[in-house]
């Protein structure tokens, strides 16, 4: 089972201190979850400034509502839900570009183990995906959400989630697979003379 980057152990005493409004406790919680929240938003939105806003607003909302946290779910899951809601709210306000994935040039959509050249290459490839497609990939593979869970949170169908995952996987494969990059149709035409 995929372990979310949010899945961090938080002492109950720290949460209790935060629930009394202690600023130092808030800061400790913020430092714990700053990276998971920001990374989730950045990967989904692909926009550093928007991700920063999500981090600010999600943490603020969590701290404003922390008195309502009853401990019936892990704190990290509670906070992740708030961060995801904030991110999805911004994603929905954008024009949905998920349908614009160009699949015609892809030769093979079947997922398989690949050679991923390096992190920077993968990040560049991710950045070229539509935000919705990238979000589905991230929520499924990194955060461990199921297709029904993704569909519910994004207000879409399960088949939408599955198709976005397949399209995103195929698109990344095309971008990262050197055999696709060397296709003749992608080579520059030689200049005459």
């Amino acid at each position, binding site marked *: 089972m995929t372990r979310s980057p949010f899945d961090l152990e938080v002492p109950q005493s720290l949460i209790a201190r935060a629930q009394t409004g202690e*600023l130092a406790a808030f800061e400790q919680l913020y430092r714990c979850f700053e990276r998971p929240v920001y990374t989730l938003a950045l990967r989904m939105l692909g926009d550093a400034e928007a991700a920063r806003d999500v981090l600010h607003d999600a943490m603020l909302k969590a701290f*404003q509502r922390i008195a309502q946290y009853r401990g019936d779910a892990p704190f990290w899951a509670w906070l992740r839900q708030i961060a995801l809601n904030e991110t999805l709210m911004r994603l929905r306000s954008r024009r949905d570009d998920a349908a614009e994935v160009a699949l015609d040039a892809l030769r093979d959509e079947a997922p398989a183990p690949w050679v991923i050249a390096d992190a920077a290459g993968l990040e560049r490839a991710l950045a070229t995906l539509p935000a919705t497609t990238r979000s589905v990939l991230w929520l499924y593979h990194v955060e461990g959400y199921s297709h029904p869970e993704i569909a519910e949170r994004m207000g879409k169908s399960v088949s939408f989630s599955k198709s976005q995952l397949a399209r995103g996987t195929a698109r990344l494969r095309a971008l990262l697979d050197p055999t696709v990059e060397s296709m003749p149709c992608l080579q520059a035409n030689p200049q005459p003379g």
Partner: protein
Amino acid sequence: MSASQPATRLTLPEALRALPLVRPEREVWNELAARLQAEARSAPPAARIARRRRLRYVVPAALAAGVALVAFEAHRAPAPPTAPATVAAPAASPSTGGAMAAHDANNAANATNATNQPNDTAARIAALEQRSDALERWLQETGAAAPLSGQDLAAAAEIENLIGVVDVALAAPQAQQTEALWRRRVDLLEDLTALRYSSYRLAATSAAGAANDHFID
């Protein structure tokens, strides 16, 4: 996995999970701390707002267990035609006795609005607060029992977020346009109530047949 590492054989999920967690280039905590401190300084109004927004969007176990009975009552008592009135219809259920008060509060607020428009801002705000309380009480005690589809759930989450934004503005030390904010809050709660109520009625209708077998001759 770092940008400088040579090629590594990984599956896509492994490669995605291996990407480093990142933090913003500009510090966020300072802004956040300043905001939290400002809110702490305005504790009395913030506490007042907090009392008024005791939204609990969880399904109370007792209500979930009593859905069939609620459905029976909802089936017997047709919903009034307008949104503010319809939200009180499920309050007829004996399992939601507290919601009866919401019904009364709704009616009181509506009557105030319809027949005796308050002339001063304070009275208008008080009426809005009363209506806001009544809607919240219904949502907390009854509306949360309604199952939502994925799309409705997303819409409800969005409305709740917008209510949160209004609450933040209302909790500001010197909130401007207080009346407009309260009106906005009531509008959003009515949207949420309509969403919950339509799901509630749907669930009630589905369960009514079974309930009728037990309660109707």
